[in-house]
C-alpha cells in the first residue's frame, strides 16, 4: 500500500500550474458562434476579449463591467449600459419580456451606483408578429419604467423577413447619474468583507425554463424581475462604505462571484447553508440536474460590504419589500487567490467555477 502523503506535494504543484494557466487570457479557438458564446461563461468571456475588446479597446470599456462610467467635462459621472433581450416565451409567471427589457438595463445602471434616469428602446420585429402582442409588451415596458421612475426617451424599429428573427428582439440602453463622491469597485474590496445577496436566487431562470413547457415539469415558480435601484439606495445609505455591487443575471450568483474573485484576486467563500433558495426552485433544479448558483436572477443584487457595516446594510435591505430575504452568504478571504469556494451544507467544501457554456443537464 502506498504512502498517503507521497502524492500531496505533486498534486499541489499540478494545481499551481493549472491556476497559472487559468490566469492567461481566454483564447477564442472556435470557427463559428455556438450558443455557449452567449451563455455568460468562459466562452462568452473569450469571445468578448478576442473579438470586441480587441477591436474597440479604450479606458471606459476595459473594465468590462455591467456598463461604462463616463466622466463629463463638468466632473459629473454617468453610468451607461446596454442589453438585448431575446427571451422566449415573451410572457412567463411573474413577468414579461417588456418588464425585463426595462428592469434588466436599469439594474445594470443602478448597481454601478447610479440613479437610472433615461433609457432607449430598439425593436427588431419579425414580419407577421401580432400587433396586439407588441402592444401588450410595450405597455409592460411603460409600466416598468413608471415603477422605476425612468423615462423611455428614444427608440428605433426595424422589421425583418419572416424567419429572420424569432418574433421580436428588444435592445435597451440606460443612462443614470452617479451622485458625487460615490465610488464602487473591486479594487476597494478587502479580506474580511461580507458578501450579501438581496433575496432568493434562481427564481427567474427556473420560471422561464418551466414556462417554455418542454420539460413536462410543473411547479409554482415566478420570475423575480424588479428594479433594484431602491435597494441600492437603501444599502448605500446604511452602509456607505459598500465596496462592490452586481446584479447576478445571466450566469447567476456563481458567475458574478467568479468575476469578483478574478477582479480582486481574492477568495470569495460562500456558505451553502446561507444561500437563499426557494424550496420549489431548489427542487426543480435538483430534478433538472442544474445548479441554482448558475441560474439567472432579474431583481437581485449582490454586495460586498465592510464587516462593521454588514449588519446595518442587511437591515436596510430587509426593510424593503424586495429585500426581505436578504442575507449574508459569505465573505472575502485573502487566500486562496481568485477562487470561489463553497462550504457545502453537508460539511465539505468545493470550488464554484465559471460555467463553460449553457448549463447542460446530466443524463442520470
Amino acid at each position, binding site marked *: 500500500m502506498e504512502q498517503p502523503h507521497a502524492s500531496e506535494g505533486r498534486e499541489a504543484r499540478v494545481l499551481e500550474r493549472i491556476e497559472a494557466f487559468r490566469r492567461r487570457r481566454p483564447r477564442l479557438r472556435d470557427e463559428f458562434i455556438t450558443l455557449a458564446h452567449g451563455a455568460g461563461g468562459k466562452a462568452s468571456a473569450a469571445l468578448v476579449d478576442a473579438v470586441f475588446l480587441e477591436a474597440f479597446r479604450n479606458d471606459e470599456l476595459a473594465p468590462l463591467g455591467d456598463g461604462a462610467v463616463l466622466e463629463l467635462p463638468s466632473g459629473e459621472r454617468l453610468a451607461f449600459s446596454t442589453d438585448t433581450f431575446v427571451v422566449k416565451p415573451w410572457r412567463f409567471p411573474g413577468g414579461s419580456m417588456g418588464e425585463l427589457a426595462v428592469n434588466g438595463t436599469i439594474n445594470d445602471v443602478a448597481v454601478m451606483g447610479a440613479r437610472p434616469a433615461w433609457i432607449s428602446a430598439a425593436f427588431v420585429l419579425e414580419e407577421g408578429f401580432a400587433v396586439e402582442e407588441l402592444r401588450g409588451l410595450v405597455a409592460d415596458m411603460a409600466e416598468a419604467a413608471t415603477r422605476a421612475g425612468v423615462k423611455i426617451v428614444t427608440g428605433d424599429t426595424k422589421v425583418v423577413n419572416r424567419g429572420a428573427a424569432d418574433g421580436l428582439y428588444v435592445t435597451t440602453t440606460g443612462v443614470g447619474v452617479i451622485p458625487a463622491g460615490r465610488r464602487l469597485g473591486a479594487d476597494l474590496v478587502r479580506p474580511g468583507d461580507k458578501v450579501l445577496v438581496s433575496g432568493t436566487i434562481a427564481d427567474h431562470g427556473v420560471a422561464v425554463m418551466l414556462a417554455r413547457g418542454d420539460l413536462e415539469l410543473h411547479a409554482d415558480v415566478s420570475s423575480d424581475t424588479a428594479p433594484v435601484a431602491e435597494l441600492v439606495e437603501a444599502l448605500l445609505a446604511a452602509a456607505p462604505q459598500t465596496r462592490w455591487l452586481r446584479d447576478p443575471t445571466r450566469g447567476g450568483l456563481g458567475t458574478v462571484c467568479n468575476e469578483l474573485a478574478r477582479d480582486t484576486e481574492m477568495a470569495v467563500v460562500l456558505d451553502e447553508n446561507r444561500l437563499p433558495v426557494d424550496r420549489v426552485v431548489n*427542487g426543480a433544479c435538483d430534478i433538472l440536474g442544474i445548479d441554482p448558483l448558475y441560474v439567472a436572477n432579474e431583481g437581485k443584487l449582490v454586495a460586498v460590504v465592510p464587516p462593521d457595516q454588514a449588519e446595518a446594510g442587511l437591515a436596510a435591505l430587509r426593510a424593503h419589500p424586495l429585500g426581505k430575504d436578504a442575507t449574508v452568504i459569505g465573505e472575502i478571504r485573502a487566500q486562496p487567490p481568485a477562487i470561489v469556494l463553497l462550504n457545502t451544507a453537508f460539511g465539505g467544501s468545493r470550488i464554484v467555477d465559471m460555467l463553460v457554456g449553457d448549463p447542460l443537464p446530466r443524463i442520470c
Partner: protein
Amino acid sequence: MKYVDEYRDPAAARALVREITELAGDDHVKFMEVCGGHTHTIYRHGIEHVLPETVELVHGPGCPVCVIPMGRVDDAIAVAETPGVIFTSFGDMMRVPGGDGNLLEAKARGADVRMVYSPLDALKIAMRNPDRQVVFFAVGFETTAPSTAVTLLKARSAGITNFSVYCNHVTIVPPLKAILESPDLRLDGFIGPGHVSTVIGNRPYRFVPAQYGKPLVTAGFEPLDILQSVQMLLHQLREGRCEVENQYTRVVRDEGNPMALQILAQVFTLRPHFEWRGLGFISQSALKLNDDFAAWDAELRFDVPGVRVADPKSCQCGEVLKGVIKPWECKVFGTACTPETPIGTCMVSSEGACAAYYTFGRLHRTAAEAASATGVAVG
C-alpha cells in the same frame, strides 16, 4: 427539500466520518465508485476532503458520456448532418468531442440538433414533424436503456416510422470485469452503481466477491449514502467478510426491476463487441436493437460511416476510467485539456472524473480545510 435534506445532514455525516476514521485505522484503503453519478455527488458536496486521508475514492468507468468513443460521436454527427434529419440528444452528449468537433458545433453549422430530457420527447418531436426523420442518440447504461426500450415499443405500436434510435447503450458488468482483470488493479472494494442496480438488481455483482475477492456495496446518490457505503465496505474488510451488500435499500431490490428487464430483453440484443473510450473493445458489453426493431435502427436506416478514431495520444482517459491514475496525474489535465477544450471525454460531463475534479475539487486539502474551518459569521 423534504426527503433530500435528511440525506445531507452534517451532524450525521460527522458521526459517520468519525466511525470511518476509526475503522480505517492506519491502513490506506482505495475504493472505486463505479458510477459517474457518485463521482458527481462526491465532488459537488466536497466529500473527498471530509473523508480521512487514509480512505481514497477512485473514480470508475460508470459515466455514460465518458465511455463513448470518438468514432461513435463522428457517426452521430454524420447522421445529424443528413438532410431532413432532426437529431435529438441528452444535453451531456452535446459537447463530447469526436474526431472532428462536437454536436453543438454541428448545430452551429446548420444541423438540426435538439436537446431532450427523455427519448419520449424525441418521439413526440417525430409525431409533430411527420415529414422529417427524427433520430434519438441513445446513450447510457441499464439505467437509461429501459426508457429507450419503452419509446421503441410505443413507436412500434403507434406505427411511427419517421423515428429511429442510434443505439449506444452499454452494460455495466463487462467493464467492471475488465477493471478487475487489469494487472495494475489496486482496489480494496467497490461502491456499486445505484441507478443501474435499480434495474438489474444486486445479483449480477456476485462474481466480484466470489471470483475476485473484492467487496461491493450498492449505494444511493446523496452524500450520506456515499459515506455509509464506505463505512459498510470498511466493516466488511475489518470483519473479514467479502460480499455484495445493498446500502440503497430504499430503491434497489436484489432482483432488480423485472418489468424493465423484460422490456430490455424484448427490444435489445447484445452486440458481439463494442468499443469503449479508453478501455478498447469489450465483448458483449453493449446493446443493439434486435431484429424485431430493425426498422427503427438508425444504423440501418442511415449511411453511418462507422469511423474508428484512435484516442489522442496525449489523452489518458483510459487510465483514469480504470482508476490507475487520478485526473490530475494525466499529463494534459487542466492545461491542454480543460472543460472548455476537452481532449478526453472524462473532461466533458460533470459526471466525468476529470471535469468533476477540475470544476469542483481543484483545491488542495489544506485550503479546503481552512475554508470550512471557520464558519461565515454575521447576520
